[in-house]
């Protein structure tokens, strides 16, 4: 196949990726979009395999068989609740693959004739190695945090920002040496090693509830690393695909930051969710003293019996309790009784963008019942009962009403505007932001202290008995 034909096939593949992403603009067209995208990938791989430069296929086939088997088994077995970890690790593999490809191309060029290595090649190799190294190790730490292997807390120590700065400077210095002395490949690996440590240092101080931002940012990095590798190889399809992914991750990152009213720098460096907050219940006692009303499933069932409109507000707690199917059963029962049911989803509920939507979709909740924050907020005043399950900070009125709290300014779901709010929660412990929630002490709020799944199942049983 002539090089022009190969390039044309790559163009077709890149176009299919764009069509594929365009399909994601609606759930109806999304499956088709994903298949078009996969077809593009298939075409790109096939034309590459018939490239004349390839002299032996054993290693390629072995790599594809091994990677394909791991990817397929993993993708088919992974539970939907573990999707944040899955995506996190995939980001890392993307970054890792970019470093390895750029490294191989660079080593080959340096061995062939280091004198002819161009500026573009050098800079791109440096970018790919740096971003890819940070992405790979940063993603492994993010995976570890989501999987519970690494502490979910924001781990800080004195001088950590200075240390990160030093590592960044060292990585950049090594990168400059890669450009200036391309014949010495050792500098490249030193740079990758420093970038790897930097990736770890960057993610360790970020707390669990900020993971949606981190995952989105690492997604963007993995795209940028692929684009940089495209510049190394002067390959358009890598550049286009990498840019698409980089843009996608960037947009998600900024949506997540906006949904928390925090800057990216604050999420990355402020270490929110460390040991300082949390168990300090001093002011909380005053707030809650004598005002918190504990309720039972039977009592809530009575309230629901007279309701015409019910809204569910899920949070990470629903994912932890694996309560999405139980919630679906309750929602179905209420709908069967003629009650209007909706789900209000905060953008940063859960551990990754869209986390709650996927869990509810898994439980067969129709997507037109899932309402985004702005739309949901128009409906709370007409809502008889709002059931908050496993969410805390995203419904904390302090974010709206108080100055100088860690949450101030963050857009929230105004559940306190509905007639009755039922909060299903194990205890009065604060959310990730470490501050008490006056919602729990509000006149129209009932606390149902229990495990999320058990509580919802009891509630469904109680509603059935009425």
């Amino acid at each position, binding site marked *: 196949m002539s090089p022009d034909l190969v390039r044309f096939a790559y163009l077709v593949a890149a176009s299919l*990726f764009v069509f594929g992403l365009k399909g994601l603009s609606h759930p109806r067209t999304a499956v088709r979009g994903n298949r078009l*995208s996969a077809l593009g990938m298939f075409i790109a791989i096939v034309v590459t395999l018939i490239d004349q430069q390839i002299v032996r296929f054993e290693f390629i086939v072995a790599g594809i068989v091994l990677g394909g088997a791991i990817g397929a088994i993993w993708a088919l077995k992974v539970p939907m609740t573990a999707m944040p970890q899955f995506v996190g690790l995939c980001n890392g593999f993307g970054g890792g693959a970019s470093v390895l490809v750029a490294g191989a191309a660079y080593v080959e060029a340096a061995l062939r004739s280091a004198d002819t290595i161009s500026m573009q090649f050098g800079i791109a190799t440096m970018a790919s190695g740096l971003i890819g190294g940070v992405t790979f190790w940063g993603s492994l730490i993010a995976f570890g945090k989501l999987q519970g292997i690494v502490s979910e807390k924001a781990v800080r120590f004195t001088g950590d920002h200075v240390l990160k700065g030093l590592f960044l400077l060292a990585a950049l210095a090594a990168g400059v040496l890669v450009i200036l002395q391309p014949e010495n490949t050792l500098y490249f690996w030193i740079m990758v090693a420093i970038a790897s440590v930097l990736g770890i240092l960057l993610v360790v101080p970020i707390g669990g509830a900020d993971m949606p931002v981190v995952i989105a940012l690492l997604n963007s990095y993995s795209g940028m690393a692929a684009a940089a590798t495209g510049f190394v190889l002067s390959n358009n399809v890598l550049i286009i695909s990498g840019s698409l992914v980089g843009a996608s991750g960037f947009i998600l990152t900024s949506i997540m930051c906006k949904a928390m009213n925090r800057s990216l720098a604050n999420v990355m460096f402020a270490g929110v969710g460390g040991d300082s907050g949390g168990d300090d219940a001093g002011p909380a006692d005053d707030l809650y003293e004598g005002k918190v009303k504990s309720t039972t499933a039977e009592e809530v069932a009575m309230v629901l019996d007279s309701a015409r409109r019910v809204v569910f507000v899920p949070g990470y707690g629903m994912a932890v309790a694996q309560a999405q199917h139980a919630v679906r059963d309750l929602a179905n029962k209420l709908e069967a009784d003629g009650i209007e049911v909706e789900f209000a989803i905060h953008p940063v509920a859960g551990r990754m963008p869209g986390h709650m939507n996927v869990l509810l979709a898994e439980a067969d909740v129709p997507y037109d019942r899932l309402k985004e924050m702005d739309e949901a907020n128009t409906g709370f005043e007409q809502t008889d009962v709002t059931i908050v399950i496993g969410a805390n900070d995203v419904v904390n009125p302090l974010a709206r009403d108080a100055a100088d709290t860690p949450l101030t300014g963050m857009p929230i779901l105004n559940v306190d505007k509905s007639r009755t709010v039922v909060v299903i929660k194990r205890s009065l412990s604060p959310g990730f932001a470490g501050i008490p929630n006056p919602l729990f002490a509000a006149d129209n709020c009932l606390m149902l202290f229990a495990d999320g799944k058990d509580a919802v199942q009891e509630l469904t049983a109680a509603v059935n008995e009425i």
Partner: protein
Amino acid sequence: MGETIAILTIFVLAVFVGFEVITKVPPILHTPLMSGSNAISGITIIGAILSAGTQYSTLTTVLGTAAVVFATINVVGGYLVTNRMLDMFKRKE
């Protein structure tokens, strides 16, 4: 230099296309968007295949083969998991 400008042009235009297309993705599909775009970033597999197959040196072959494994996990895992998720959204029309 001419070639650098040419691919830089493609890069910048692709970023614009990316922003244009992705801003239209609704929040309910943000997780499939991430896994789907992960699969797309597995396109580095084509660079990996060339490194693993050209046998320039032992080191490049090892690096290339490792990259093939990583990228294939991304491609296969990414597309399959995205398909699985999107099927769940589609089921109840």
